């Protein structure tokens, strides 16, 4: 479960990215967070992953109040989250396989189990044949699917995706959303930040709409 209560995020420059955010997301829910550029979607997702901290208010993830966690506890929390970053954060100096392997190395999986899981995740996103390729050789859609594979390979309870369909054609964007839907169907909580209104029309899921840092829906 994800719970925000009275969350404000104000940067030192004085800019208020989020104002009085209150919501609860139940386990295994699929939620779209939408809004214009600069509405605060990415900031909200970063607060969930404890990449940034709120100025005031309380954020509780799976029963843990983020304000009470120390550095190591935040690391262990993140292992339970699958993150798809807006800027992808792919390591181009290693193969697709090794990119997806990284979360499992962090979790301390033995190589045999990790290999099986990596191939299963790559199969899920349709990149099995590209396992040994370098990410530089992948198309935009394939890179995005690589990020999804890396996010889900550790079997997280919550999947967070920041603009996962940005710069993708509608067909490719739908492919990505379908992958998220299939993950949601197996019980993973999925949060997707997007400004693509076409996706929202098709998805028929709960929507949290942000405008100038405030929840409007």
């Amino acid at each position, binding site marked *: 479960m994800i719970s925000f209560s009275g969350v404000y995020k104000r940067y030192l420059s004085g800019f208020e990215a989020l104002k009085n955010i209150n919501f609860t997301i139940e386990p295994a829910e699929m939620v779209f967070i939408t809004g214009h550029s600069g509405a605060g979607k990415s900031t909200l997702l970063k607060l969930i992953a404890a990449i940034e901290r709120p*100025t005031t208010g309380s954020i509780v993830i799976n029963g843990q109040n983020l304000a009470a966690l120390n550095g*190591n506890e935040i690391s262990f929390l993140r292992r339970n989250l699958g993150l798809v970053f807006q800027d992808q*954060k792919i*390591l181009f100096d290693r193969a697709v396989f090794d990119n997806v392997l990284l979360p499992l190395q*962090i979790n*301390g999986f*033995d190589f045999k189990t990790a290999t099986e899981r990596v191939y299963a995740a790559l199969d899920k996103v349709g990149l099995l044949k590209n396992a040994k390729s370098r990410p530089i050789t992948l198309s935009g859609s394939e890179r995005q699917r690589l990020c999804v594979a890396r996010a889900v390979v*550790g079997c997280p309870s919550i999947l967070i995706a920041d603009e996962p369909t940005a710069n993708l054609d509608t067909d490719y964007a739908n492919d990505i959303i379908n992958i998220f839907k299939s993950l949601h169907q197996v019980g993973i909580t999925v949060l997707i930040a997007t400004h693509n209104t076409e996706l929202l029309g098709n998805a028929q899921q709960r929507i949290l709409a942000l405008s100038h840092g405030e929840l409007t829906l």
Partner: protein
Amino acid sequence: MSIWFSHHWHALVSALRKLTDAPITSLLNIVVIGVAFSLPTGAYILLENLQVFSGQVSGAPQLNLFLALDTDKNKIAELESRLTQHPQIASFQFIPKNVALQQLKKRDGLADIIDDLAQNPLPDAFIINVKDAAPESLESLHTEIQKWPEADYVQFNSAWTRRLDALLKLGKLAALTLAFLLGFALVAITFNTVRLQILARRDEIEISKLIGATNDFVRRPFLYFGTIQAAIGGITAWLITAFILHLISNELTSLAKLYTVDLRLHHLSSEDSAILLLSSACLGWFGAWLSVANCLWKTESRWFKDTKYTH
């Protein structure tokens, strides 16, 4: 436990890969560390050997008591009894004047001269081994015996070795200071090498942190890298000094023989070798730790720089 082993195994493999990915750079770093550490190690070995040599030459501290020429056998017997009962004296040996003359005759070129002497000019003498080798104790015994009426002259034959010992102590202090300074250099070398490694892998570190890596996970491969590199540097220092000792050992032994001295150079003992290896590894670990701590601090402060946090 298996996760712990898995993390350490992953870190070790990653560290070895970092070493072999840039073999020339790694080799040069190891040589620099080896040469830097071979200087204090070589100085220490030299001083240790000199100390052994000075111990061989001087042996246990001794006093030579030369008796007045007119000392008779009764007085010598009384003197023997006094020496036996003296608490500071471990043992003594009486050298009668005729025995001393025979020993002198055995020396090259002196037999003819001694044969020409009308009478034995040498006095009876005692060679006294003392219990306590402390300079103050030796001095007080020397002064006491000198005052005995039978004593003509008391020779204190360890003065020069004491001076040598003092010089050796000074030399050891200088070697220790050098080791300290070059140890600091080793930390700086490792810090800089690991810093360059971190710069090359900044993205990997940042992504790892974002997907759940603890600071220990990020730090571990670099700690292994710094420790292994410095330990190999320590082994290189050991090999460099062994090679130099091998080069000069034969020449030095031959030179010492010309002065009728048996001098053989010895390398570090197994304990000292272990200390060299361990200290270089620890300094490498410390340099790497400082470098990664600096990187992690910068990464986290970059994430949170724009945050004014209140609970």
